[in-house]
């Protein structure tokens, strides 16, 4: 008997910390961005896992709303990060 919120939540934590380690180690920039996205997914998973209330009951909608906006914001933040890095690269080349 496994508790659904528990296993999904633990998986989310594992994803988060592993991705955080990759993001903090010395890797190419795009891999860092990838790692931050995976870490974000881990956090979202913890949120939604704790919102789950069993197969019969409806889940808690507040974390759902938070994660929903989080996903969209994560995308635009990723785009901003990529644009910043590209600009930095270009200024470095011009020097």
């Amino acid at each position, binding site marked *: 008997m496994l508790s659904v919120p528990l296993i999904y939540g633990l*998986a989310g934590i594992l994803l988060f910390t592993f991705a955080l*380690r990759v993001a903090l*180690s010395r890797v190419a920039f795009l891999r860092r961005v*990838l790692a931050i996205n995976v870490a974000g997914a881990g956090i*979202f998973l913890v949120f*939604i896992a704790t919102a789950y209330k069993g197969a019969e009951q409806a889940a808690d909608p*507040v974390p759902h709303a938070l994660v929903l906006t989080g996903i969209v914001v994560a995308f*635009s933040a990723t785009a*901003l990060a990529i644009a910043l890095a590209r600009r930095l690269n270009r200024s470095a080349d011009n020097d």
Partner: protein
Amino acid sequence: METLIWNLFDVLLLTALLALGWSALSTSNLRKGIALFIAFGLVLSLIWARLKAPDIALAEAAIGTGLTGALLLAALRDEESAPAETSVQEPGNRFYAYLLMLVTIILTLILGWGLIDALMNRQHPGLAYDVFAQLDQSGVSNPVTAVLLNFRAYDTFLELAVLLAAVLGIRSLNITRQPYLKAGPVLSGLTVWLVPVLILMSAYLLWVGAHAPGGAFQAGAVLAAAGVLLRLSGYPAAGLPARLLIRRAFMIIGVLVFAMIGLGLMVLGRGFLDYPVAWSGSLILLIETAATLSIATILIMAFLAGESGEPEHQEKPSC
């Protein structure tokens, strides 16, 4: 028996997720990493559906699998065409790597302990009860939409402002991305066929969001996916209007309508975004329509990075 099968299902799904996440980050080949990341997003949207979060599954299916993958691949393409030093793969300082590993393990243990403690000794059922008690006052019957556009509407308002700020930041960096070549007959055939379906799907999600999973964010993401598909098959403007003025109007209309309605209600002597019950359904639909347009435009602009498709804005390539 059935619980056991469900447990098996959960374990397999999570194994697939963790394996994909781990290998997406461990591979040294970025293109492979991004392919794995797209698969990761697919599995994640299955997990959202399994955890009874259909709203999130819709957004993830559009953004996690489609848009983010396409964005990362576009970025990779830029990096490859520019002579950049992308290979800083060495672990560098040994001591730092070990320290990082240790800190990660400790962090995992602390977070895991916190989660287990929270799940075992949870006293109150979160905010779900309050939301469902007030749901018939909100003007919509989908609880997630009610939270987003009524109970916590100012959060969503600022959320849109954050999106706008991000895309303004991207634009101010003044970078350009090379457009794609015109697609062959098969992909253009698919595009011609799929883009109208995507637009229809977006309208459907916007409408249905009042009483079933869907809403402005999902609709905007699906609409943005249509734009990205157009861009990929060789339409440089990605379906955005050619006039800059109209494009910018689309970008801000969500925030604008949100603010106007909020301030208008204040003029009428109510709180900011405190809708009258009789009007809340229509007001929410109005805001959501504007927000969908804005979100889609912003997401496409974030993908394009700059006003591409405008000849006078294109600076000389390969700097």
